């Protein structure tokens, strides 16, 4: 096994562990108090103006109905086309959209390349109809993705540098991240010039999947593209570019989480645990006594009447 293969496994492992740790970090945080923000799409079409169940008399007596379809219909354009930016910050959207869309397409290209590798292992190389179809998709998604991504990167770097509103808040690392991604797109494109059917790349993936030595020889450009990509792959989970994580949690678990507490045993158990947490806030009015008192105790004490209440 060659050093580049070992490096590929290593970077892949770092990515998986890093990203999983990140998801786990947020997923295991306590259930917070409600902090929703309307409009909430699952409140249904008749609430498209941003209404909620609070508009119904005796809402707690009514069956709770969540319109999941409306939710998906909202999230899809939000993720694919970055609608929030389109509506509220168009001059940035012109660059951010091709950048993100290019990224999605090139990821899809990589997915098709992987499918192609599996097909090849099953005896269905590009010479077969299905193999050739997958290969065409790989090329289409990959190449269009690289081009769009590259346009986006160039636009975003220029925009960030020239728009004082953005340049003031940008650090060198922000430019570095963009340029790093741009380098992946650019070298990917150059790989395609040399290897128009991504045949060598597919061979490489086959070797990775089967843990076996490579059959084809990688070109210098392949090496370059792979190294830049692998570095980014391992670095990515530790950056704020993982904002798809916040997109999931902030939407699903914060802005759109309007589930009323109707005494669900799971929710009750959580609340009871939290109320038992010791408090160490130092301000005098909290009277936490350096962690000797818990939330339940301080919240049910009125220090100004000095009356302990249950």
């Amino acid at each position, binding site marked *: 096994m060659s050093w580049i293969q070992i490096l590929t496994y290593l970077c892949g492992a770092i990515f998986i562990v890093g990203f999983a740790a990140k998801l786990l970090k947020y997923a295991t945080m306590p259930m*917070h108090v409600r902090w929703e923000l309307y409009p909430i799409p699952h409140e249904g079409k008749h609430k498209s103006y*941003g209404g909620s169940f609070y508009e119904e008399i005796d809402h707690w007596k009514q069956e709770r109905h969540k319109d999941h379809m409306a939710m998906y219909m909202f999230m899809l354009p939000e993720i694919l086309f970055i609608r929030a930016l389109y509506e509220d910050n168009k001059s940035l959207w012109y660059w951010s959209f091709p950048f993100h869309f290019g990224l999605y397409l090139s990821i899809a290209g990589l997915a098709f390349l992987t499918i192609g590798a599996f097909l090849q292992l099953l005896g269905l190389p590009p010479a077969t109809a299905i193999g050739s179809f997958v290969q065409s998709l790989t090329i289409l998604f990959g190449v269009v993705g690289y081009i769009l991504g590259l346009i986006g990167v160039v636009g975003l770097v220029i925009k960030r540098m020239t728009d004082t509103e953005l340049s003031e*808040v940008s650090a060198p690392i922000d430019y570095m991240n963009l340029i790093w991604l741009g380098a992946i797109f650019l070298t990917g494109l150059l790989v395609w010039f040399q290897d128009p059917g991504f045949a060598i790349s597919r061979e490489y993936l086959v070797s990775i999947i089967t843990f076996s030595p490579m059959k084809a020889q990688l070109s210098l450009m392949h090496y370059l593209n792979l190294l830049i990509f692998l570095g980014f792959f391992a670095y990515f989970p530790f950056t704020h570019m993982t904002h798809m994580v916040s997109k999931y949690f902030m939407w699903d678990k914060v802005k759109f989480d309007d589930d009323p507490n109707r005494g669900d045993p799971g929710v009750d158990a959580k609340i009871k645990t939290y109320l038992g947490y010791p408090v160490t806030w130092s301000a005098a009015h909290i009277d936490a006594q350096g962690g000797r008192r818990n939330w339940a105790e301080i919240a049910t004490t009125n220090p100004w009447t000095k009356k302990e209440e249950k």
Partner: protein
Amino acid sequence: MKPEEISKPGEQLVDLNPQNFATLPPPYENYKESPVAPLTDDQKTRWEHSLDGVSALTLPKPQTPEEEEKLVASFLSGLEKLMTKENNWTFMQPLMLSLEYCAKCQTCADACPVFEASGHKDIYRPTFRADVLRKVAKKYLSPGGKILAGFRGHDIDLNWDLVARLAELAYRCTLCRRCASVCPVGVDNGLITHELRKLFSQELGIAAAEIHEKGSVKHLKFGSSTGMTTAAIGDIIEYLEDDIEEKTGKRIKIPLNKKGAEILLVHNAGEFMSWPENPMAFAILFDAAGIDYTISTDLVGYDAVNYGLWYDDVQFARVAIKHLEIARELGVKKIVIGECGHAHKALSVIADRLLPGDQLIPRESSYTLLWDIVKSGKIKFDPSKNDFPVTLHDPCNAVRLMGIVKPQREVLRAITPPGRFREMTPHGVENYCCGGGSGFAIMSSGNFTDWKIKLSGRKKLQQILGAFQGEMDPELKKMVCAPCSNCKGQIRDIMETYEVYEKTGIWYTGLVEMMVNAMVEQEQPFLDWPGEDEDDDM
């Protein structure tokens, strides 16, 4: 201006120039705006004001370098506590997400009424205070945070200048969360302000006096943030009954502490003092609709406000728990929240996951119930009694943050003649805060009043004037319906400063007052316009 500059020593970080403030629509197109009133020299020597020359907190200057150091260390330890589940289970997840994920796109800036009104002052950008906090957390609290801090963009100096300015900056945002609703990655800069205020209050004991000592402390000590005691509330209710009799010719009994009543009605107690017609109107409507309700005179129970919502989770919990406990003791089926936006959100939404389900009592908005009363047909309304142009202010807390959008509109449509009601632009969940949110409406220390009127309230003034363009003749009376006590307070202050009624004929009121005004049964007009009544509080 870069967020790092907040630590720069100096007398004042930015100057507020009224020439840069956003312009106002006619008849104020040539209005010469005056500067935000400066602090006196004496005040300047005593209070921190190095952010923008404004002091909302009247924060005393530390006397020795040791004292400064101690405060800075407390700040950092408070920040650390904000990021632990034990001390901050209530908001840790959204806070950590918001701190980690800003994509620095500045989409939120254009959504912020304060930033816009100031003429785009960088310190008021929604991201500014968030960025400062983020950078301090990264540099001082994350492992290896000082390595390559400049390259990674968080090389900020944590010193007293930063802490003092950040404390003030926590009180330049109304927590309206308009910024959060446009952020493409879901970052909530309003929440960051909220957490920052908590850090100052819960760790350093620093908060605006009007919301802490004179607010939630009074609430828990005397029963109401207005200082109205449990002994006084009974008398006040009696006065209201007298006034109702005077206005309607009918003696109505306002039920107090009635065990087993269907509804516990809670008002923002500020209404009793500043706008007694509001609780009076509720009493008239509930009586006419035959609603079985009660008002509590128990400590905390007659004041729906919960200022902890804006700055302190512990104070919040103490008040919310008391509200729920009183309702349980009375054995009511639900709590109905009067015209107070933040009380709506506090008790309905935030308190919802504070206690296990069996200790909760259903909470309902008065807007919803009022709409139900209109729909029931139990009260006859004559819309022609409200024959003047009307616009509606959407209290952020009840609208964007709770999704109660339609009921108040339906009520207004039912009680005004066709064509009289018009929306502000934008409205509903996209509304702008009145500028009095997060406690500003009641805050008046230092020179803050001037700031909140000229800056945080500016956008609302633009919107109100915008709704009546072409009808600015002061002889033509026009009404802003603001179904929130705090919003009314802020709108009143804006109107006074800019002499809006005198120049344009625009006045303000709540929703129930307009409903009673339209009641067929009601012989005299219920609404007071300035100048009509000797004792109006204009």
